[in-house]
């Protein structure tokens, strides 16, 4: 019972501890006059609240993670021998049954006596453990509170402690990105290696033909397939370039117009409107590209005498460009807006036109942010799938003609992973290899971008 409310109780106790701690500090402060206290009462409060809540929360969450496992062990002992000997996963079915029995409304496979017996055992054990945990964590809150509260004194460097803790928190947060990367590499690396056992790396990297038509069944024998990734990467670059050719000018010009020319009123309304573009589901864009833009391009093209395939890189790239406009426009608008007015004044006072001011002063000053937003947009273009699947097709043509159908890395990954797949055929594994090399490819792009930005950064005061 108590256990169910443990989380809110701990939080309320932490709040109380905060109030108590800061109250105590305030009291000391009043007694001993100005500057006597090393840190503000706020920090003393946070210090106490931290020690009140965190150990208890840690124990609580550890228990949360371990509970299922421990309870299973406990219940297992009360079950018939043949059930006990089941393997872990199979036993989970029995446990599922027991849990369903506890809920009471569902027929189970266990015979009634066993089921109710186990259910009772489960409940009893759970209750026992849980109340133990509840008392343990409450005890910890009290202990934590007591120990930290005792420490409050004029000299306690509470601010330093709290700031140290927050810095650790910040550090941990930035570790998330690192772990994500590691996770991604791990989740594609093993399969990629398996893939390269079947297809030589060089064939993959330098091959000009992509046709993952391998046999899927032993009896299918079938075609052997070709895994040259060049056309796939070329297609990715082509489409991303088209998208950027749309998004960068439109996005940047919009950003500049909004922050430099437009009235505050216009900016207030237009900016969020543009941001809607980023949130329209890509499926919707895909339909639009495939059913409206692509036929339009084909009609226009054939009227002009070009051979346009009904699925073209141009259609997909155009629509994708529209989709990523807000990445450029909104993020750039923010950084441009943040350029101090004194810089603009400096330029305008020399008789520069707004255009010259923007080009020579404002944009360079805002450059790192702008480049960041453009990079983000490029990234998004490289990572986008649905639009290309629907509008540019899946055929891996090695071409720089935007009127032809091409395919991209992400599209191939998605179709390989969602189509009829097999655990270890090169066809499925190719998805992971593509993922890995895309990762490496964008890594290079980003390293280059980093150095470019470093070089041209103009830091204002």
């Amino acid at each position, binding site marked *: 019972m108590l256990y169910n409310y443990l989380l809110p109780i701990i939080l309320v106790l932490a709040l109380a501890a905060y109030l108590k701690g800061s109250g105590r500090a305030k009291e000391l402060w009043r007694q001993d006059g100005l500057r006597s206290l090393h840190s503000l009462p706020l920090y003393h409060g946070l210090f106490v609240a931290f020690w009140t809540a965190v150990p208890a929360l840690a124990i609580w969450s550890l228990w949360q993670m371990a509970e299922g496992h421990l309870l299973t062990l406990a219940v297992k002992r009360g079950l018939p021998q043949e059930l006990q000997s089941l393997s872990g996963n199979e036993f989970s079915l029995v446990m599922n049954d027991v849990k369903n029995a506890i809920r009471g409304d569902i027929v189970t496979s266990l015979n009634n006596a066993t089921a109710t017996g186990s259910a009772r055992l489960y409940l009893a054990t759970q209750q026992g453990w849980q109340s133990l945990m509840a008392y343990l964590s409450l005890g910890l809150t009290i202990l934590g509170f007591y120990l930290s509260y005792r420490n409050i004194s004029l000299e306690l460097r509470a601010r330093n402690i709290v700031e140290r803790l927050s810095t650790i928190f910040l550090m941990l947060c930035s570790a998330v990105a690192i772990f994500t990367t590691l996770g991604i590499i791990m989740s594609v690396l093993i399969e990629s290696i398996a893939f390269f056992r079947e297809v030589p790396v060089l064939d993959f990297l330098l091959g000009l033909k992509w046709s993952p038509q391998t046999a899927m069944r032993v009896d299918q024998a079938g075609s052997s397939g070709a895994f040259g990734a060049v056309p796939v990467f070329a297609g990715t670059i082509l489409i991303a370039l088209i998208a950027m050719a749309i998004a960068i000018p439109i996005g940047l010009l919009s950003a500049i117009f909004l922050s430099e020319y437009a009235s505050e009123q216009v900016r207030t309304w237009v900016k969020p409107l543009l941001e809607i573009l980023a949130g329209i589901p890509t499926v919707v864009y895909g339909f639009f590209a495939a059913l409206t833009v692509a036929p339009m391009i084909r009609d226009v093209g054939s009227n002009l005498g070009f051979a346009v395939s009904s699925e073209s890189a141009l259609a997909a790239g155009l629509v994708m460009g529209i989709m990523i406009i807000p990445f450029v426009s909104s993020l750039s608008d923010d950084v441009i807006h943040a350029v101090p007015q004194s810089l603009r004044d*400096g330029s*305008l006072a*020399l*008789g*520069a036109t707004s255009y010259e001011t923007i080009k*020579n002063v404002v944009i*360079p000053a805002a450059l790192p942010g702008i480049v960041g937003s453009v990079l983000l947009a490029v990234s998004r273009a490289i990572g986008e799938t649905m639009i290309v699947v629907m509008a540019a097709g899946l055929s891996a043509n090695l071409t720089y003609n935007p009127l032809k159908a091409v395919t991209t890395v992400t599209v191939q990954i998605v179709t390989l992973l969602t189509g009829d797949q097999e655990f270890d055929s090169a066809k499925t594994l190719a998805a992971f290899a593509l993922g890995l090399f895309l990762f490496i490819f964008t890594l290079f792009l980003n390293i280059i971008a980093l150095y470019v930005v470093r070089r041209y950064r103009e830091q*204002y*005061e």
Partner: protein
Amino acid sequence: MPAGLITALPNQLRAITMQLRLDTNGELSETSQQTVGVPFVENARMTCRKVDVHYGEKCAIKNISIDVGRNEVLAMIGPSGCGKSTFLRCLNRMNDSLASCRVSGDITLDGVNIYAPTVDVVPLRAQVGMVFQKPNPFPKSIFDNVSYGPRIHGLATGKADLSEIVESSLIKAGLWDEVKDRLHESGTSLSGGQQQRLCIARAIAVSPEVILMDEPCSALDPIATAKVEELIAELSTQYSIVIVTHAMQQASRVSQRTAYFHMGSLVEVGATEKIFTNPGHQLTEDYITGRFG
């Protein structure tokens, strides 16, 4: 009021009794003051008539009428916050970029109303240059800071030409020796006084015909100050200069005429000598003798 009529007015309007009445908000009361001294000159380069500036609701300067003569240095003095910078910024419409700022009245340059809707601010500002109170170098190299103006106005025909302009401007501003070896470092990495001189160099590099300087020597040591004053003297043979300064000595050294501002109004204008030796208004006298406040 047409400019012709004004300049035709007799030069003898002076010592008109004036009363400053402050209402409870410390704002100027409606009964407007008249300026003591000789606000108008013959053959004026710029004329200002009844200029009021409001920041939002608040009136920053009120009913300022004054001329800037040809080839003269006009000094503006007055206690901090009295509206000198505000007025200065009106003269090349720098206030346009402040959304909350409204300017009314007439200001002309060579007889053209610079606030007329048809007037382009770009040539206006090229003609009426400005040095701001707070140095604001661009986060670019020192060279680019100075060459920026000449470049956009196409004043240099080539690279060499441009370098020449940059060098001569920096020399005039007295900064050349200090920076000649580091022209490609960022302007923001200079010391406070160096930045100020950089801004002066930047402004004179486009050879404006009227130069507005808002405390151009505030961060300068006496030697650098002397250089700038020399520059002012040299420029004033050809151009008109309006300079805001807190140093009375500076005003008396460099200017032909001095204007005294007080709480948003122009209290007195006159020949510098006259102002500093025999001021026409009690407030002016109090201020220059340091008895005020």
